[in-house]
């Protein structure tokens, strides 16, 4: 059952009945942070900050401490997360990330969102590597009711995406979303391939891709920090999509990522269906991060 899986209580449990701020309370907070994948560095940074505020009597009781912590994390996460506004068409979104995090599914969800907004949307099958990746995208596209620009398995992904940009432009599409193969950030050649994809897009549209969304799996631990850093360095990520928040993992790892890299979380994914996507809301996320029930 849900509760028996609980390792520690949520933030409310920790504070329940506490009259004073003591070392135990701070330690329990540390535990709560770490078990939510916030990471040791960010956790210690926040705990040290509040410890200092306690000693300077800025925070006088547990209630003030709790609010201060929530505020701190809220402030870290509250970056402008609207999509970039542009005048040209198509609006090009490139979706990147390591293997199996949910890129292709997220693209289906985004396509559904744009289509519902009345925008003429097309997808580019830029994963020409993984077995049946193109079929997977095609099935999603059929379900959503948008076309896919594709070539056969094994063709050059940069060429596929370049053609897609040219064609979407010619046909007057509003939005083009390009899928890419999952790649570990540590693979030099695959990261170069990604840079090449961005370069060829720019050949046709210098301002594009207008968004480069990095998909991160909420279940991941500290490796996501490395993913975010290296993908950003390679291609300049403009936003994060945090997926699989319907599981029991809290996705706390993004707190450190956003704090350090200042990349906003733009969307969250919380299921396998095409409606299971919404814009990220920092307040809701912070509440969920420290809620009692898992």
């Amino acid at each position: 059952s849900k509760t028996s899986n609980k390792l520690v209580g949520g933030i409310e449990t920790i504070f329940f009945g506490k009259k004073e701020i003591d070392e135990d309370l701070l330690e329990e907070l540390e535990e709560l942070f770490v078990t939510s994948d916030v990471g040791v560095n960010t956790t210690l940074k926040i705990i040290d900050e509040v410890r200092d505020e306690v000693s300077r009597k800025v925070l006088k009781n547990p209630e003030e401490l709790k609010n201060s912590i929530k505020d701190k994390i809220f402030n870290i996460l509250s970056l402008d997360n609207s999509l970039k506004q542009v005048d040209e068409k198509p609006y090009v979104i490139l979706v990147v990330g390591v293997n199996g995090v949910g890129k292709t599914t997220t693209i289906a969800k985004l396509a559904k969102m744009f289509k519902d907004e009345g925008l003429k949307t097309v997808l580019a099958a830029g994963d020409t590597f993984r077995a049946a990746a193109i079929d997977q995208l095609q099935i999603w596209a059929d379900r959503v009711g948008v076309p896919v620009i594709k070539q056969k398995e094994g063709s050059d992904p940069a060429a596929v995406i370049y053609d897609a940009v040219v064609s979407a432009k010619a046909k007057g599409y509003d939005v083009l979303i390009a899928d890419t193969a999952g790649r570990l950030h540590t693979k030099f050649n695959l990261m170069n391939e990604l840079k090449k994809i961005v370069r060829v897009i720019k050949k046709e549209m210098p301002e594009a891709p207008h968004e480069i969304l990095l998909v991160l799996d909420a279940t991941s631990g500290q490796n996501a920090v490395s993913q975010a850093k290296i993908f950003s360095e390679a291609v300049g990520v403009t936003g994060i999509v945090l997926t699989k928040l319907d599981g029991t993992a809290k996705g706390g790892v993004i707190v450190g990522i956003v704090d350090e890299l200042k990349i906003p979380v733009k969307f969250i994914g919380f299921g396998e269906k095409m409606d299971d996507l919404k814009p990220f809301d920092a307040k809701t996320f912070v509440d969920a991060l420290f809620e009692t029930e898992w």
Partner: protein
Amino acid sequence: MFATLNEKLNAVFRKIKGQARLTEDNIRDAVKQVRLALLEADVNYKVVKKFVSAVQEKALGEEVLKSLTPDQIFIKIVHDEIVEILGGDESEAKIKLNPIPPTKIMLVGLQGSGKTTTAGKLARFFQKNKKDVLLVADDIYRPAAIDQLEVLGKQLKVDVFADREKNDAVTIANDAVKYAKSAAKDVVIIDTAGRLHIDENLMNELINIKNSIQPDEILFVADAMTGQDAVNVAKTFNEMLGITGVILTKLDGDARGGAALSIREVTGKPIKFVGTGEKLDAFEQFYPDRMASRILGMGDIVTLVEMA
């Protein structure tokens, strides 16, 4: 990340070095740093706690005070303790073939962990051992899941059992096993849909498949990048299905893979193989000592100690 951790640990060990004996004080300090190191490697908080107290106990014990220098001893205890948790009995890491074929293997796990790819890798592994393998496409949910397995089967020239008309995973698994018997297959590998451990309907589907075909192995496929939640997921899969082993995927990246320690600790089940790439030959036996060094992030120091 790797570098900073190494620096931290090295700093700890430099501090201990040069002192004649491990005192309770300097151990406490070092243990604290090791604790942080393990947490940074995504070892579960509770597992770390338990681990740390075990190490502390050993470090303060008599045997410690006898040989080598204090820092070397401490490193060795930390490392050995991890190897012990990860390793255990080597023979249990092998996949035992059923004397009455086919040997039935079921792959289970969260979405995107690498089950379908691993099914292909396992098929290739048995194929190399001259076994006749049947791959079973039992994921009826994910778009193009059947196509994905069929592409892999074609690459390997391995038979793939699929039934696009039926939308019941239990029936498909059953039919596949029947077919495997009639075709005298040695090994049947069943690819199942990814699912959350808290999804009751889908977990029940797995239980029904299990009860119906009585697999020889139920392997839990886990992503090496998994964070703290690995314990909850592995624990639930194990409690509901009684997994027989674990396959850890995506170890070709820079993930420290602390989840391995958590999963092993919480399920007690052996890690049988690791995935080290997207290609079907990127599949290896699991080596506890390599994994321990990786989690600690200090391979070279450990090797030095081994040689001493």
